[in-house]
């Protein structure tokens, strides 16, 4: 296949503003990933192209970006799912809503700040006698399973129009993380997390647009988890 890869580029040491660079790539395999195409550019055409990536199979959360207008992990986006036929164009941009530092690299600090704000850790200092594990039934464990899949890639948060409009909104990823603990039978700080999330920049900024759910590469039902947190605030 022949792919025209359009990459939104910006090098703060040289460029005044971002621009799209086009690379024509021949002999692309349908099962190639967008990450493979970006690597091809970076390795053989222009080594200055900057992007984050590590695991290359959708586990580390490094390479979320906007591909043909939708947030995805470049390592999970197969060319055959983006282009029908023998040739076509794929457009790659950095995620929206976070400051672009260079090419596809954005400033992740605000994202991790929101993450940290919801107390993303188990609070429970009592340990069962004999130091054994706390007991939890498979059903109790299942209750918060979805949220444990999150890889903090930021695809959800940076696909959310409410977040674009207002970067002080904690965003879907942080709410998913809070959900993971609020519904864990072992945790004791649910009320504190719900207090954070019921504030102005908490869950109520969610307008149920569902972009986050579509964007999640781990297939977490993000919008549903947010709704459950909203419900819990109402209930308690």
């Amino acid at each position, binding site marked *: 296949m022949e792919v025209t890869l359009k990459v939104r580029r910006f*090098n*703060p*040491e*040289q460029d005044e503003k971002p621009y799209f660079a086009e690379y024509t790539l021949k002999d692309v395999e349908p*099962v190639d990933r967008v990450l493979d195409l970006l690597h091809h550019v*970076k*390795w*053989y055409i*222009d*080594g*200055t192209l*900057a*992007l*984050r*990536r*590590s*695991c*290359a*199979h*959708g*586990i*580390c*959360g*490094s390479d979320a970006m906007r591909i043909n207008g939708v947030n995805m992990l470049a390592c*999970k986006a*197969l060319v055959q799912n983006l282009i029908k036929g023998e040739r076509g164009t794929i457009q790659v941009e950095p995620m929206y809503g976070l400051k672009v*530092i*260079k*090419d596809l*690299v954005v400033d*992740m600090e605000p994202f*991790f700040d929101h993450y*940290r704000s919801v*107390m*993303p*850790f*188990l*609070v*429970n200092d009592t*340990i069962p006698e004999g*130091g*054994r*594990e*706390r*007991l*939890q*039934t*498979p059903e*109790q*464990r299942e209750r*918060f399973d979805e949220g*444990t*899949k999150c*890889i*903090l890639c930021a695809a959800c948060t940076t696909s959310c129009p409410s977040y674009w409009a207002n970067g002080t909104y904690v965003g879907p990823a942080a709410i998913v993380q809070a959900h993971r*603990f609020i519904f*864990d039978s*072992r*945790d004791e700080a649910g009320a504190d997390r719900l207090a954070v999330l019921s504030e102005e920049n908490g869950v109520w900024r969610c307008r149920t647009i569902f972009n986050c759910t579509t964007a999640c590469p781990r*297939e977490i039902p993000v919008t549903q988890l947010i709704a459950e947190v909203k419900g819990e605030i109402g209930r308690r």
Partner: protein
Amino acid sequence: MQTHRHEVIIVGAGGAGLMAALYASRNTDTAVISKLYPTRSHTGAAQGGISAALGNHEEDNPDWHVYDTVKGSDYLADQDAVEILCREAIDVVLELEHMGLPFDRTPDGRIAQRRFGGHTSNFGEKPVRRACHAADRTGHMILQTLYQQCIKNDVNFYDEFHVVDLIMNGDRPAGIVAIELGTGEMHIFQAKSILFATGGWGKVWQISSNAYTLTGDGNAILLRKGLPAQDMEFYQFHPTGIFRLGILITEGVRGEGGVLLNDKGERFMERYAPTIKDLASRDVVSRAIYLEVQEGRGINGKGYVHLDITPETVNHYLQKEGEKRRIDREYIETKLPDILDFCRTYLGVDPVHEPMPVQPTAHYAMGGIPTNAETEILANAAGDIVPGLYAAGECACVSVHGANRLGTNSLNDLVVFGRRGGLRAAEYAKDADWVPLPDDPAGEIRAALEGIRNANGSTRPIELRERMMTIMSRDVGVFRTEEGMSRALEEIRELQETFRTDLTIDDTGHIFNFDLLEAWETGNLLDLAEVTAASALARRESRGAHSREDFPERDDENFLTHTLATVDVNGKISLDYKPVVITKHQPKERVY
């Protein structure tokens, strides 16, 4: 250039680094430096489980775990260290649960355990359920949980700082040099204790389960300081990587009942390991796949075999073996969701309906920075330590894995020795004086990096990497010969020469200059490839993951020893050897 000071510096934020950080930061000023955001570390890719003889499903005990680990290591592991690993594994797994790790649960609410290769009850009698797991994302949960605890405990992090050198003052470590990715600026970190936890270097080989960023930086830095690398010839090829891509398909698939089939539909492991078959240890299974392919029984004559977890196949074999257990699709969906997702995404293959194409994939470094059980780095075969220097996790070699690691024995290694390392590094830092920084502590590395930045040769780093991966896969892979390895060594040295004399990169800037740092990482990989080939060439026997066609037998008389390789200032490699610690289990023939 900024200078910082922390009593303890931990390089790397995977499972080993974070556990060390949690412990060291309790009573010392500790900072973690990582080239990746901590949650991007490759510990997050670990799937199948972490072993500990909890006995939650059936009887188990740490003595059996020790035996299995020693046997799996082909008797090259140090048995005193293995004892520590297997006993403390129980403790750390429970500690992880207390920290909040969401393990799968048994019906009575305990941590769920599954079978894994080489783990048996009663000294090899039958497979045992020892691998504690959270679906097939156990490593992800460990990494997340440890990071969460670090946030809770306010651990200091320097994220996206790439460590490029260790600062020595004479023979005392004084600190490290790191580049802040976001600015390209060099930083000096003065420290009393420095612990390396930089992970593996699977990117030396073509087909690999490892991340792009696993380039053995810590190991290469220490080699350049004249410190030894231990047992580098022992590199594990995991039997089941996705064909061509190398992405790992956990052994947990076989632990849940999956079987390997050749082109004739034959469960060939029955021939190679009659007792535990598909759950034999990894070196055994990888060789079996390789031989099946070589003898024309790969699927359609190609370089792969099938791994089958479809309920029909699994239940067929469970019944044949007189086991009561049966599985269905839903069970597979809950126990192996990520595996299903990888196959569906990358292959368009749905493992609940059809088998997965697999081949051996470069996976895990048994060798590495030699340490004692306190994680103190050893300077030589006599066992002298370098005070203030520590290593833990995959980059280190204690040695608990010897010539072949058992599945699920790395994650416990990370936490057991990460914890010991954190404690020891902190204890040392409490009493030690600051080692003064030498003049211009970053001078040497700055010159080296500027050399790369401004290099005006004609070879791009990727060309060197591709050549290296081809050479190493061809000649220093699952099977090895004198001829192949000598050729590899020579060719790797040519690549090193090209690296020094004819390199070119495109990016001369500073902000997020990955071009520069990846070129530097390429140099690290080449150095580790060279030491691997040289260590392997000298070991004229077959043991664990090191299989020689020209020396097919294990030779305890001459090679029941650990290799220590050092590189002198002129780049010349010398090899030295040190004895294996054998306590309870005398070497005997290894059959599964």
